[in-house]
Structures are given as structure tokens and as C-alpha cells.
């Protein structure tokens, strides 16, 4: 006996969702570190872009800074908000800097 239509659908959706889910490393600094309460975490997400990931985390942890006021780095290089996330990426959100 083969799988029922319903079973195939569930199975198919699971495969699809597994493909979309990735685990990324997120590092936090300054105000974001304070608001998140830790400096680094492995985070499982279905977000496609770094912007979606920030919005997801912002909603979860009540970050005060809108994405438009901060920068973002992917694997230790500055990047833009539309950049697509891949498994094991390192993402760092960069609050307004204040060196000097």
C-alpha cells in the first residue's frame, strides 16, 4: 500500500520546510547584546533574507532599533539587507557605531 494523499502532502510539506529552515549564528554587540541578553546564539530560522531575520528577532526580543538605523554583516563582511541566508552563516547586526 502506498501513502495516502494526506500523508504524501504532509511528507512533501516537511521536506519543503526542512529545505527552508536553516541554522545561522547570530552575534550581538552593544545595545542589541544588552536587549538580547547574550552575545551569540545558534538560531533556527525560515527567514530568507537578513532583513527578515532581523525583523523576526526584533519582534521576539523587542529590539528598539529599526533595521533602517543599523547595519548588517554576513560572515564578517558588510552586506545589504536583501542578502539571502545560507546554512551556518554568521550574521551580525551593527547598531550605530561610536568609535573615536
Amino acid at each position, binding site marked *: 500500500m502506498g501513502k495516502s494523499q494526506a500523508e504524501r502532502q504532509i511528507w512533501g510539506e516537511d521536506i519543503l520546510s526542512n529545505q527552508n529552515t536553516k541554522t545561522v549564528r547570530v*552575534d550581538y*554587540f*552593544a*545595545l542589541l*547584546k*544588552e536587549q538580547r541578553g547574550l552575545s551569540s546564539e545558534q538560531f533556527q530560522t525560515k527567514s530568507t533574507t537578513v532583513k527578515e531575520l532581523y525583523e523576526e528577532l526584533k519582534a521576539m526580543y523587542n529590539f*528598539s*532599533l*529599526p533595521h*533602517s*538605523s*543599523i*547595519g548588517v*554583516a554576513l560572515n*564578517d*563582511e*558588510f552586506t*545589504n539587507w536583501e542578502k539571502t541566508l545560507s546554512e551556518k552563516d554568521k550574521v*551580525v547586526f*551593527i*547598531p*550605530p*557605531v*561610536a*568609535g*573615536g
Partner: protein
Amino acid sequence: MFSLSSTAIDREALRARVISPAAGGFVSFEGWVRENNEGKEVSALEYEAYAELAVAEGKKIVAEAERFGIIEAECVHRTGALAIGDLAVMVVVSSAHRKAAFEACEYIINEIKSRVPIWKRETYTDGETTWVNCSHQHATGTKS
């Protein structure tokens, strides 16, 4: 060359790194921890850096300053806890003639302040603390 330092910056050692027989001028900038900021009295200050990217971006800035026609440039930025009067950042530049060194030095410190991922947390005498620039929601200007 750009580096971060968790200990006091050695002025003489940094200066020595840009000395050259071809140099006729030397310009340096020292950024110090000031006792007040925006009308509030500062009691303690801490710098935090995203080291990997701060060093990469800092090196890029110092390399960009070569376009002014300098001989050598160096910059060191502190991390960790600092006291009032401590040296927070130092830029040194040598060049054949003074104009290039002045221009390059100003360029480096301006770019460091706006582009390098370093953050400053100030503690005030009234006990309040703040991450400088983070409540004003400035754009970071980090596009390179």
C-alpha cells in the same frame, strides 16, 4: 595598519612605526575620554568592538588614506574599560610634506568614527548608562 588594543596605547611605539628618512612631516591625533558628553557628567566608559570586522574595516580606511600621498599611517583603537583622560584612539601619519599628513590624519579619524564597528557605553555620575548614538537611531553609514 589598524589594530585594536585592550591595554594602554604606547604612544612612542606607535610613533616609531611611521618614522622614515623620506618623511618631512608628522601628524598625530589622540582621542581622549572626556569628562562629559551632551551635558552629562561621565564617570566610566567602555568600548566594545566587533573585532574581525573592525580590524578589516580599519585597515581598509588606513589603506584608503594612502591616496593623500603619505609615507606611513597607523591607527590603534582601545577596547574595554577606560577612565577619564585615557587615550581611546590614536592616529599617526608621516609624509614628505605636512599637507598630506594633516589631510590623511583627519580622513582616518573621521572614517574610523563613522564606519568601524566599535561601540561606546558611557556611565554617568547619576548612575545612568547609555550606548552612545544608539538611542538617536542614526544611520551607521556602513556601506563600503
